[in-house]
């Protein structure tokens, strides 16, 4: 049984200018222990579809799907109280801006222990021990001291490590990472990706990695979904996607990588005649 199954997910927003369809019929599934990358440019609906799974969209959004199930359990018509028991415990998420997503008014220790207080019955001392353990696991030096630090006293990379610690606090079965390294330097990006991959291999959790960086995809994913204008263009395992991209949009994305440049101008997505019909045929 797949960890997370989504069939025909549609998300619409009511705006002043009419209805905006941000996600248009996305289907995907994640198996246990698998790393799925969702690639697409901004506005392609990759974050929105995952926020729909988490139930974090504002009230202006209408979420429709034929099926949205986590471990066989329907997520669409879940009571909010029931949903809260799953979110943060079995499914957790790392957001793009580490500094903006931590609360500046509380210490990082408090914020890690908050998750534990909600979802486990550990007592105060045990929560503290677990928080130290987590900070150690994500590679923060002096974890005992750092529990009392505020987010502004840490660097961007360290804040992202704290976010990962919070996400991992209750041993999630599925981790959704929404552009976890976009705001970070290359060297720090490498460290964070290594850390995530290492933790994923050790705990065997499923992982969804949302990104627009093909380099990150190449370094981490098992399987890739390419999304464009809210629709799934192509889905393949990572090797065949890079070796034999089928959809023109995927080809365009790969050609736009500066390291693949031939000649003195980069091909852009606009140079490829784009039909936005998804590629469904067999792979050669």
């Amino acid at each position, binding site marked *: 049984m797949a960890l997370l199954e989504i069939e025909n997910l549609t998300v619409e927003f009511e705006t002043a200018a009419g209805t905006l369809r941000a996600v248009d019929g996305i289907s995907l599934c994640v198996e246990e222990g698998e790393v799925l990358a969702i690639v697409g440019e901004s506005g392609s609906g990759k974050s929105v579809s995952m926020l729909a799974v988490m139930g974090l969209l504002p009230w202006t959004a209408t979420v429709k799907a034929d099926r949205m199930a986590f471990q066989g359990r329907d997520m669409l018509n879940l009571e909010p109280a029931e949903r809260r028991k799953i979110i943060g415990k079995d499914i957790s998420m790392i957001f793009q801006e580490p500094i903006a997503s931590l609360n500046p008014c509380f210490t990082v220790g408090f914020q890690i222990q908050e998750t534990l207080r909600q979802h486990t019955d550990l007592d105060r001392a045990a929560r503290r021990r677990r928080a130290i353990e987590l900070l150690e696991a994500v590679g923060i030096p002096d974890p005992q001291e750092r529990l009392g630090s505020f987010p502004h006293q840490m660097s961007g990379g360290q804040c992202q490590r704290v976010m990962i610690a919070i996400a991992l606090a209750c041993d999630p079965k599925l981790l959704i990472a929404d552009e976890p390294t976009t705001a970070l330097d290359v060297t720090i990006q490498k460290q964070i990706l290594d850390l995530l991959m290492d933790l994923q291999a050790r705990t065997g959790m499923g992982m969804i990695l949302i990104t627009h960086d093909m*380099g990150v995809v190449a370094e981490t994913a098992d399987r890739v979904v390419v999304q464009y204008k809210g629709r799934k263009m192509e889905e393949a395992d*990572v090797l065949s996607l890079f070796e034999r991209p089928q959809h023109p949009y995927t080809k365009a994305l790969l050609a736009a990588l500066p390291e693949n440049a031939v000649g003195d101008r980069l091909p852009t997505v606009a140079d490829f005649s784009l039909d936005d019909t998804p590629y469904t045929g067999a792979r050669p």
Partner: protein
Amino acid sequence: MSEIVLETRNLVRDYVIGGGLFRPSRVIHAVKGVSLKLEKGKTLAIVGESGCGKSTLARMITMIDAPTAGELLIDGEQIDIARKTLTPEQRRKVQIVFQNPYGSLNPRQKIGDVLMEPLIINSDLPAAERRDRAFSMLLKVGLRPEHFNRYPHMFSGGQRQRIAIARALMLNPRLLVLDEPVSALDLSVQAQVLNLLADLQDEFGLTYVFISHDLSVVRYIADEVMVMYFGEAVEYGTREEVFSNPQHEYTRTLFAATPRADVESIRRRLARKAA
């Protein structure tokens, strides 16, 4: 030999931090003696992690901040803003494009006004001519005339970066300092902006100082590369020299950390994982 547009000799910038009644102040050495020479029409890429002083160096080259010590020469002319005010002619020569196109445009200013403002301040052109120049620049960076009267929030990130580039070019600068101009942009938009920069360089014979932490972009765009680490230039040479034979430990770490998107390295990774 072609002309040298930009030259710095042992450029140093210190920042003095804090210091109260009972606390001594601290000095941060942001840039510790950087020397470089850049010919007309070339692109110098400055690479380094956040906090290594690359933006401070950019601010000194753009004549926003005065260096603590060292010399800055633009077109062979010595510039020292701490002692002598700049002439409009000197100001015109160097322009800058900032990293975040969402923060660098005034949300209350229409695009036309954004483009005409440098002309109002630095030239005495009549209004009609300012307008004409703004229109033609708008077209040159790939926007349309109807964008003239719109506000920044009506544009996407890539379009805003085009506007920022257009504004920088209004005064026909010799040298354009680009402070991470594409790192906030998507891959496909990034390609468009890089192409635009290459086109403009060919057309106007511009010289670029391109600040970035993305080595794949640097490899694509740069003629010369400088790697900075804690305020020092640890590596400086042509692109081929730096990429084929990195000397400093940090440069090698940087190369190793850059994600590789070729089929071979994916194969290797999958093999490692299966093992």
